[in-house]
């Protein structure tokens, strides 16, 4: 039972790493603020939760697995809330349809 669970956990961690990598690619390559936010947070939520659930068979006993599950629930509640706050702040400042200036020299 436990080797099977560990194998499934390993697959879940690999899938989570792939989703997190997809989130990074989304943030780097999408053209607009909203698409970047959408791709980033969707993929990042899924990736992080898959990693946390996949680490559950490797934790020490049932107590550690339950703690990881609670962390995953907390992450599921709070990450979409944070990206909603960012998107609403962008909307309030009317950042829609403005292309992101890649060459802007930041303040030194």
């Amino acid at each position: 039972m436990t080797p099977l669970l560990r194998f499934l956990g390993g697959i879940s961690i690999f899938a989570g790493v792939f989703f997190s990598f997809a989130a990074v690619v989304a943030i780097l390559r999408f053209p607009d603020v909203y698409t970047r936010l959408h791709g980033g947070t969707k993929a990042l939520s899924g990736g992080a939760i898959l990693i946390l659930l996949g680490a559950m068979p490797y934790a020490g006993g049932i107590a550690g697995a339950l703690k990881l599950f609670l962390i995953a629930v907390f992450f599921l509640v709070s990450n979409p809330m944070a990206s909603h706050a960012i998107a609403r702040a962008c909307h309030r400042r009317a950042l829609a349809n403005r292309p992101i200036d890649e060459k802007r020299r930041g303040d030194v």
Partner: protein
Amino acid sequence: MSEPLLAFLYFFILLTAVVAVLLDDLLSSFISLSVTGVLMATVFALFRAPDVALTQAIINSGLVTSLFLVAYSQTQRTPSPAGECRECPFWLRWPGAALVSSLFAAVLFRGLYVLSGDRIPGSTSAHYLSQTLEETGALNVVAAILLDYRAFDTLGETTVIFTAVFGISLLLSGGKYVHSGHGLSFIVKRGMALLTPFILLYAASILFLGHLTPGGGFQGGSVFATVAILICVVYGTNFEAARISPKSKETFEAGGAMLFVFIGLLGIAWGGGFLANLSGPFPAGTPGSLFSGGNMLLLNLAVGMKVGAGLSSIFYTMIKILELEDDSWPS
């Protein structure tokens, strides 16, 4: 612990540090610095230091970044034309600095290389590891060192926190209170209302179980300050000041320091010396239960009150003169 994993983490620590140094955009460089902090917390956890990893992750990656964001939003930065020293000759700019730093790194590494033999802990540390249970009744050796063997240093540390709060309040006083925000949207407010009791419970468990598990007054107090910061950001500064007034924060901070000193004076009154633990009037209790370790529970509470109230009043002092641009959006 595997060496390739450690090498991987060290490489990324150095990479994010280089990114934080060389980037022009301030926001990105501080985000990179907080990533460095999280990676260092991971390295600390790999080096079997759970207390230190918890403190590093909470304070250096969370609290310092939020303080930077407040300072960043409060300053007006005009981009300077050159970005480097305008009056210095060429060799005093980054080539000179790079030369000095690399010389320093070489000398430091040569000096540290001598220490890389077999590590034998000193007799003090061996004494702490073997005698903590009998002499203090606590299970967390680091907490026993901080609150029993070297509790006087912890009193000095709370004095440093007090000095920082004092200095910041003095520097940023006299400003007009311009605006308070309405906070974020309804979704975030309800979500925060759902999460806040659990975060407070987590903070209390770190604080009160500090003598049994990794944690203690500093970490628990910082998480309490984080809750105050979250309420400030999500609900608006007026709401937070109405719920937890600055006067009550000052009272909590002073109360924490006074509780610490009062416990120390109780030790003197009992004849055991300042901040005496088991040779004072405090019972040892059964090891592993909540009421064990003598006065460490009360000292943790005092330190937590001090740190939590101090850090949240630092944040409130820095943010209360924040001007908001468009305040008329209904929440």
